[in-house]
């Protein structure tokens, strides 16, 4: 009666074999590698061509590699040691990025699993280590959604102005007031006409009529749907901007993810230069192109604290004051590319900008209408604007190709281009959480976590074997298989393993032994009550099952609550904890029973079980 049908034994065997295979990659360790990936959104990586180029450049430099690998976004080369890796990185860097000021590829140092090819091909990868185990930087960025909406409204005010002028509707002023654009009119007739014109052209706006003294006004606010779209767009644009900026850092496996509605998580494994990372990320700059107001007397009045309406006072980078119109001609969204370079004629350092088609059209109109006037490129950082440059418009510029030159060093040109090229952010962002872990601390954390688990396991194993003898050994084997399955599952899911995660592995093992203790105690009890050994095994497993189920479900409820509401370290703990409870059910009940069946199942006349001393009262 204590025999499993063949399919059950097979199932256990297959599951354990699967666990073994997927756990294997964790034992091979890692080897140094160099990773090449695209550094620009416009550049698609061609895997085979890139592989050939990497091969060639390594051959030219006389460096031997231990294998080339390609996936959709990158090509990786493995090397024997870190010295070779560094040399190879320089060689590859030289081939792929001849112009160091303008890298098209990201060439980064990385670590690759040393597991054999056949394991990698079945997606058996080592566990994905969290930042606290491998070192690196973690940022949580908050996107200022109000800022995104305000910005959109400013642009809307400009659009409406153009629209009304085109349609010959005379208004008495347009401006943004709080979360709405207010348009004033002299009479109701124009107000009505404007209303129909606007609602025909723009369906993102809700229009409300009103009266303000002698003026009639129309208050245009964004519909909830439009606001939602803007916010979604803002976070997407910010994420892609961050991607571009981080590519400049040359990080092998950056993680950039949306978290919640308005937050972005950035994780940069292996990055040690936090200051530089923050500098690049923290450039919460938005870019705006506006016209300079050169009306005579305007600047003087503004300097005396009397800023003319519709304009704002800014300081140019050199320190000169500048009066800039409030109306935004173009924002960074219209910019598709920016490169540092040199002016074809004067050989001065210059920045070359490329605009998208809508941007190009607007730019053409503006430049045609404003020849010999000045245009200001503003960098708005945390609500404060700075005029990066204010060039004079020499001629009408069509086709969307713009060059800014003059009074710039080539370093400044590179800097400006980097800021422009990285794309400006749709909404300002702020770092609200930062975690930096040095590489030595990461390695220490791994060894601490590993040793805690190891010694805890050893202690339990010794005790169980001493107390329950053969059944203790079976319990320990079941516990080991639990560990095996848990690690395999974590490797398969590529769930991030953190130090709290390792703690959860240890704790789960400590708690999982409960099921086996329950079973063993039950078997002893049955024996004490006079059952035959075979019946005792059967009843022990049977009766303990209910209890094991109940107790695991309650523990699982706690685990799931942590998973749902936990963030950061708690989440890492909860994932492992929940998975561990599931694997422990399997191993404690099926695997240990399977083993016991194999040992005792076939013996018809079983006199005694090796389960330690079965003490009976009265003997």
């Amino acid at each position, binding site marked *: 009666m204590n025999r499993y049908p063949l399919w059950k034994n097979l199932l256990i065997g297959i599951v354990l074999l699967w666990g073994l295979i997927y756990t294997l990659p964790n034992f091979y360790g890692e080897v140094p590698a160099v990773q090449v990936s695209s550094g620009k959104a416009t550049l698609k990586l061609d895997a085979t061509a890139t592989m050939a180029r990497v091969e060639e450049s390594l051959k030219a430099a006389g460096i031997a590699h231990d294998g080339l690998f390609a996936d959709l976004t990158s090509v990786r080369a493995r090397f024997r040691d870190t010295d070779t890796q560094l040399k190879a990185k320089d060689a590859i860097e030289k081939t792929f990025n001849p112009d160091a000021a303008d890298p098209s590829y990201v060439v980064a140092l990385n670590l690759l699993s040393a597991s054999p090819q056949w394991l990698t091909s079945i997606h058996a990868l080592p566990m994905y280590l969290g930042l606290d185990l491998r070192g690196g930087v973690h940022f949580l960025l908050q996107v200022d959604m109000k800022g995104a909406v305000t910005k959109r409204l400013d642009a809307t005010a400009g659009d409406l102005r153009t629209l009304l002028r085109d349609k010959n509707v005379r208004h008495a002023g347009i401006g943004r007031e709080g979360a709405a654009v207010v348009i004033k009119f002299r009479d109701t007739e124009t107000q009505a006409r404007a209303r129909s014109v606007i609602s025909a052209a723009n369906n993102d706006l809700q229009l409300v009529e009103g009266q303000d003294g002698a003026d009639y006004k129309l208050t245009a606010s964004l519909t909830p749907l439009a606001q939602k779209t803007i916010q979604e767009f803002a976070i997407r644009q910010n994420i892609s901007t961050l991607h571009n900026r981080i590519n400049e850092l040359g990080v092998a496996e950056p993680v950039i993810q949306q978290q919640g509605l308005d937050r972005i998580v950035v994780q940069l494994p292996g990055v040690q230069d936090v200051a530089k990372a923050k500098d690049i990320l923290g450039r919460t700059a938005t870019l705006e192109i506006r016209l300079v107001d050169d009306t005579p007397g305007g600047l003087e009045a503004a300097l005396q604290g009397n800023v003319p309406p519709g304009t704002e006072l800014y300081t140019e980078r050199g320190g000169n004051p500048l009066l800039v119109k409030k109306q935004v001609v173009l924002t960074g969204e219209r910019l598709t590319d920016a490169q540092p370079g040199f002016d074809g004629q004067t050989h001065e350092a210059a920045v070359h900008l490329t605009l998208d088609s809508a941007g190009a059209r607007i730019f053409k109109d503006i430049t045609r209408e404003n020849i010999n006037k000045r245009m200001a490129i503003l960098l708005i950082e945390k609500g404060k604007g700075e005029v990066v440059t204010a060039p004079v418009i020499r001629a009408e510029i069509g086709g969307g190709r713009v060059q800014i030159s003059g009074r710039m060093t080539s370093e400044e040109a590179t800097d400006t281009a980097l800021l422009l090229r990285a794309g400006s952010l749709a909404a300002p962002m702020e770092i609200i959480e930062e975690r930096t872990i040095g590489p030595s601390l990461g390695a220490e954390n791994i060894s601490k976590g590993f040793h805690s688990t190891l010694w805890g396991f050893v202690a339990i194993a010794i005790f169980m074997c001493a107390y329950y003898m053969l059944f203790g050994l079976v319990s320990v084997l079941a516990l080991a298989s639990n560990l095996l399955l848990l690690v395999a599952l974590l490797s398969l899911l590529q769930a991030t393993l953190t130090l709290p995660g390792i703690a959860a592995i240890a*704790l789960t093992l400590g708690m999982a032994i409960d099921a086996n203790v329950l079973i063993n105690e039950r078997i002893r009890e049955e024996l004490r009550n006079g059952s035959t050994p075979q019946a005792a095994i059967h009843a022990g497993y049977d009766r303990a099952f209910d209890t094991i189920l109940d107790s695991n479900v309650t523990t699982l409820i706690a685990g799931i609550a942590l998973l749902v509401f936990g963030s950061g370290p708690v989440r890492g703990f909860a994932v492992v904890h929940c998975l561990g409870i599931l694997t422990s059910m399997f191993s404690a009940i099926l695997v240990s029973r399977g083993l016991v069946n194999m040992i005792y199942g076939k013996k018809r006349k079983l006199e005694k079980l090796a389960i330690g001393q079965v003490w009976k009262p009265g003997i």
Partner: protein
Amino acid sequence: MEFFKIRKDIPFMKHALVFNVISLITFLLAVFFLATKGLHFSVEFTGGTLMEVSYAEPPALEKLRDALGKEGYQDAQVQNFGSSRDVLIRLPNRSGDETAKVSEKVMASLAAIDGPKAELRRVEFVGPQVGKELASDGAMALLLVIGGIVLYLAMRFEWRFAVSAIIANLHDVIIILGFFALFQWEFSLPVLAATLAVLGYSVNESVVVFDRVRETFKKKRGLTTPQVLDHAITSTISRTIITHGSTQMMVLSMLLFGGETLYYFSLALTIGICFGIYSSVLVASPLVMWLGVSREQFMQVKKEKQEAVV
């Protein structure tokens, strides 16, 4: 080996009142410490900047404090951590300060001190908005755990069991928190995780006992309720001690080898495990008794059928 050679059921329920008074006192003490001393929340909850730097030789902490004071961080806490060569610096969030830059400024001012150079090991910066969310998320998680467990136990057993299990185990949670308040140990996110894990774990303990209670009620007639409870506890006591002992071995291993990060985590677990045994055996069971559990509650199904016939 057999540690537990128990001839007769131990009359736990005779002393139920004593146990309940003891746990009431510990509970009230814990609440008292929580109220008067409060928890020493980690940076994750309060917001602020925490930095861990390490030196080749032990630095003079006074010097570090002076240097930070000059930078305008008079409210910086500088203390040794682990060894005399590792230093922990805590800075509260200040409004208007460019918070994300704090760690760089601090490193710069540390670098300006002559003597051994500081190596940055770890930075944790948490903005003010994050901390509040964590606290509310923690509370939500706790509520979900309580609700889920009560519901499950009420379904599988009976509401009396559910209520007494959750009361007994919340009492564990409060006692863990009380310890953290009394000794002003740092209450961090991993500790919160440990606390909630303990809640699940010790309910599990109560479940094992309750399971036996149910079984005994069904199987053995003629026993009074206290006798049934005594029998259930006595027959599971060996399992209780061995399981907890095993789990504690693992936790002890973390306490010894896990380093600073896992220290308070495993400490919370240790307290939780010790009080978990006590509360699920000696608090939950008397509570079930006070709430008036009886054999009939497990025979209800049959009874209803009979009534239907009549």
